[in-house]
């Protein structure tokens, strides 16, 4: 498992140079609430056909900063992005609420204060 730090501003460029569809399997987007309004976002990849090779890009952010969407690079990323929108109430370009919770729901269950 390798962890690489990135920022939301450079995310698209970083992933764009790193990701090759035939080499890397995109797993999911993950969010971890660190408390006090801070949140750690992770983009997780694994390599096809190689043992135990997992790469996690992570970036620190807060609830308000919009998160860039990876859909232009990885079309299947929309599911994970919709999930973090629902679960943390983040803003992701092009992803709406309503995957699990209602569209107008005020919940964001995985935030630490809720």
């Amino acid at each position, binding site marked *: *498992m390798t962890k690489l730090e990135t920022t939301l501003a450079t995310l698209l460029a970083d992933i764009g140079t790193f990701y090759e*569809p*035939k080499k890397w*399997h*995109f*797993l*999911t987007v*993950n969010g*971890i*609430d660190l408390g006090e309004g801070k949140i750690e976002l*992770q983009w*997780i990849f*694994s*390599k*096809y*056909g*190689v*043992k*135990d*090779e*997992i790469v*996690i890009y992570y970036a620190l952010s807060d609830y308000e900063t919009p998160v860039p969407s990876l859909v232009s690079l*990885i*079309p*299947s990323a*929309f*599911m*994970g992005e919709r999930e973090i929108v629902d*679960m943390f109430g983040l803003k992701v370009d092009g992803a709406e609420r*309503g*995957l*699990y*919770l209602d569209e107008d729901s005020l919940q964001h*269950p*995985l935030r630490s204060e809720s």
Partner: protein
Amino acid sequence: MKKTIQIPLGSQHISLLEPIRFKFECENEKIIGVDADVGFVHRGVELACTRSFEFKQVGYVVARVCGLCAITHSLSYTLAAEKLLGYEANDRIKYLRMLMVELDRIHSHMLCLAHTAENAGFEALFMQIMADRELVMDLQEAISGNRVQFDFIAIGGVNRDLTPELTALIHKNLTLLSEKIDALIGLFNNNWSLSLKYKGVGVLRLEDAYTYNALGPLARAAGLATDVRVETSDFPYEDIGYTMILESTGDIHARNFVRLREIVNSIAMCRNIADNLPAGEILEKTKGKPKGEAVVRVEAPRGELFYLVRGNGGNMLERVRIKTPTFSGIPAMMEVFKSSEYADAPAILASFDPCMSCTAK
């Protein structure tokens, strides 16, 4: 005049085991657009794992995420927790865990095959596969005490041991089963109406499999060689005779065939395990509290199951992230539905073996 009609499928429909709602935009019966709503089963397990349950209980809670692959859920969580505790299981535990995971894979694949047959309108085949599947269910009941939702895996080992009588039963039932699977392979290959229904229907091309990150049998049917069983070193799968099954056409027929041949492979592996079971304790004491971050990938019947567990040294965990196979399979699924017939939709859907309770957690 409006040219299209909107056909709903779900959330309650006879061809669905679970609530998922599709809205197919159809021209006559040709699908031109799909909209899916997958949130019917959302319960909030991820939150409950960190708020309501202690880390020792979480293994039994995450098993309830999905009834079909319960064992892989509790296995992945347990592996992650054991990594955080710095504990390494002995060989006997590893082999027993592999045995149950492979048995679970056999019964899950058979259910999927039966369900695909039923949705293609082949009731007798459904009944036949369900009858054969009972052999595995009996085995699971004998080994673990329950037919589904067997809480077999605990942190530090497994809850039940294998006795010589059980080994004999495994051999007996699996021998019977492998004959029946051979018969099924012939049937799936040769039946004329099944070939109309399955061959060339619901095709996922290899490029699409790469683009949409397909996984599990779905990807292997399209020719994408990925299997978590060889991409992790948690279990010695190579030692017990694992081979990767690949097909190239990516249609329903190929997916069924990947499943059928994986069942054959799993039967061989189970018999190997039963023969070469190492000696050792089956449940060991673990000390300490989970601290740090661990990721685990396990090959569930539907594909890769991913757990990320983070603990802070307390009884309660900080974060349990569950990424289930169907969750990643949905983008590829939606792609396949386009430009196929509505009459095929239930069979295509069943051939993906979607698990909504996994997806929505």
